[in-house]
């Protein structure tokens, strides 16, 4: 990904930052992940897997912001949910084929991300968390009141459609492999953003922002770009989810959804490559198994937060990476 922001002062250092080669252990982990995901639907209920994949993408996108830029957004549900509504509306009312509906949803989230990002990126820490929450609440309110979103009903009976005029997405396995492809694409975009000169600058900003400024970079621009990428990919996750489940609802724009993605990323490992994926699968599985026990799910989620923050800050993959002494 080419870096378009120009430094204020000519900085020869920029060209000398080479994109690090793909580490072999990360490549191995990636291959394992792909193989497992290809085989999985034949052993596990595919609809469950599709849900986990959408959330895995959402968590990866979120991780870009918290893990690599160090900004905790408490309003990311706004991007997941609004892309879902956009894609559902496009597919159902305008008759878009699924691929265009997903693209439309993604673009909606991207535009929203650019707007909200521009307004919030100057804030930091708790203020950033609060102001992103505030905007997410406004999106929630809009989703509640607008006619086309259907309020409490949401947008229902969204057609799965036929991908590229050839693949009938009402077939579960076809839908699954499409979702897998979307997930892998998004995953690779996040990976490339991190392992690139752009990613290196982001890490520098997270480590020491004033120093980065003095080196001639404009952190605000980089942070904003990262925010927009994060928002856009969250949108892809939301748009795909709306097609898979044929429903876009208020749950996806509610602030507790923003809390869930934080949980997934924390549990999996903030700032790791594979952490969010693992975290998403773990949290979705937990939800699935504890669903019938009502409040126990909330208690379990709360305990995970507490334990992770106190003793398990690196998350599952983070700890695994530490054991292996290689970043994952």
């Amino acid at each position, binding site marked *: 990904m080419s870096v378009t922001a120009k430094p204020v002062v000519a900085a020869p250092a920029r060209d000398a930052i080479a994109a690090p080669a793909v580490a072999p252990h990360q490549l191995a982990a990636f291959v394992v992940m792909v193989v497992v995901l290809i085989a999985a639907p034949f052993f596990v*209920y595919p609809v469950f897997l599709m849900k986990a994949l959408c959330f895995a993408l959402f968590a990866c996108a979120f991780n870009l912001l918290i893990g690599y830029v160090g900004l905790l957004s408490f309003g990311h549900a706004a991007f997941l949910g609004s892309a879902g509504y956009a894609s559902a509306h496009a597919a159902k009312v305008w008759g878009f084929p699924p691929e265009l509906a997903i693209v439309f949803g993604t673009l909606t989230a991207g535009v929203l991300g650019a707007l909200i990002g521009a307004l919030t990126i100057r804030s930091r820490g708790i203020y950033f968390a609060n102001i992103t929450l505030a905007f997410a609440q406004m999106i929630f309110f809009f989703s*509640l009141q607008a006619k086309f979103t259907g309020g*409490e*009903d*949401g947008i*229902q009976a969204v057609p799965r459609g036929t991908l590229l005029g050839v693949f009938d997405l009402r077939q579960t396995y076809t839908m699954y492999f499409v979702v897998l492809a979307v997930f892998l694409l998004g995953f690779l975009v996040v990976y490339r953003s991190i392992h690139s000169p752009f990613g290196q600058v982001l890490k520098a900003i997270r480590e020491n922002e004033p120093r980065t400024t003095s080196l001639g970079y404009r952190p605000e621009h980089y942070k904003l770009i990262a925010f927009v990428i994060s928002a856009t990919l969250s949108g892809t996750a939301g748009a795909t989810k709306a097609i898979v489940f*044929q429903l876009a*609802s208020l749950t996806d724009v509610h602030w507790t959804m923003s809390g869930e993605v934080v949980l997934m990323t924390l549990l999996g490992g903030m700032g790791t490559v594979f952490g969010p994926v693992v975290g998403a699968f773990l949290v979705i599985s937990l939800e699935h198994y504890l*669903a*019938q026990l009502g409040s126990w799910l909330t208690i379990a989620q709360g305990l995970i937060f507490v334990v992770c923050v106190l003793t398990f800050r690196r998350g599952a993959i983070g700890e695994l990476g530490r054991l292996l002494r290689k970043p994952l």
Partner: protein
Amino acid sequence: MTATRVLVLAAALLAAAVPAHAQISDGVIKIGIMNDQSGTYADLAGPGSVVAARMAIEDFGAAKKNMKVEVLVADHQNKPDVGSSIARQWFDADHVDVIVDVPTSSVVLAVNQIAREKNKALIVSTGATSDLTGPQCSPNAIHWTYDTWSLANGTGSAVVKTGGDTWFFLTADYKFGHDLERDTEAVVVKNGGKVVGKVRHPFPTADFSSFLLQAQASKAKVIGLANAGADTTNAIKQGAEFGIVKGGQQFAGLLVFLTDVHALGLEKAQGLLLTESFYWDLNDRTRAFSTKFAERHRQARPTMAQAGVYSAVLHYLKAVEALKSDDGPKVIAKMKELPTDDPVFGKGSVRADGRKIHPMYLFEVKKPSESKGPWDYYKVRATIPAEQAFRPMDQGNCPLVKK
């Protein structure tokens, strides 16, 4: 020719000899009770609906008739995405044949779609939306216990006729609230009343003081509560604080269940007018049923939602027995064919648009002095016969109804 005839006869005999089970999918009839098990609607339906379903299976005598019936339970948390996930999983992976109960209109509509897609059955007892027998009607679904139209019709017209001709609406700001307000307003106006004001409160709301002040200022004779659950009970409780009833105004609860009145207490709820399709103390049959229910469910009497589940499951099993199959739309069609009779609603029937019809009752909540004990809360003010209680079939825009 004789050989062919013998063959045909043999084949026919063989076919007749195939036991009834073989046409019931996997040999088991699986009934899925999906509702809110732990949230706002847990008391009016929740685990009580499961008790009611099990009672229906026993009373039907499934064991004696050699029919295997299983009950699955799930909590949809009043969210359409959770409800549709569960429905998908149940129909796809768990081979559930029929989903019963389903409070919360948004979940009803989502599950309705899925039942249609997967060719299974849905019987709604607690959910309210009259769209289920209107534009969203389906050959796979029946709306059993009540709906927004019948509530609006019952309470709205009865209240206007008893003198409550100016109305102020306190409406929950979501589709169900809007629908209830719309249906009731139409009835009020039709009966010669006037709507002098409305206010939409966010759903849910904890503090109604501001909205109650507006209702007081309007000087309407009746304050119509187009909301449900905690919103209704909060509004009534706080209304008592602000002296609404003492000031001469009356609350009309547009969707109130026995358990709401129980939670409020007669002190606060007295005088409230409401419409329901069942009350435990109506006649000997309902009393007998309710006593058995109370023994199995914390001494609480059944609400119309829970009683509806009993009635629905009973009739479903009768239809399956008669049809010797649990194929979704076929059973639904059979249920429409057979007349219903049970201790809950007495005699009734299911219309072509999927609407079960039975009488509705206008109740008034007793004063504390009039009540002989817990759960003795209602007195009957009017009975609306089955034919008049529900929206006429030709007004619903249901595609299944031949014009």
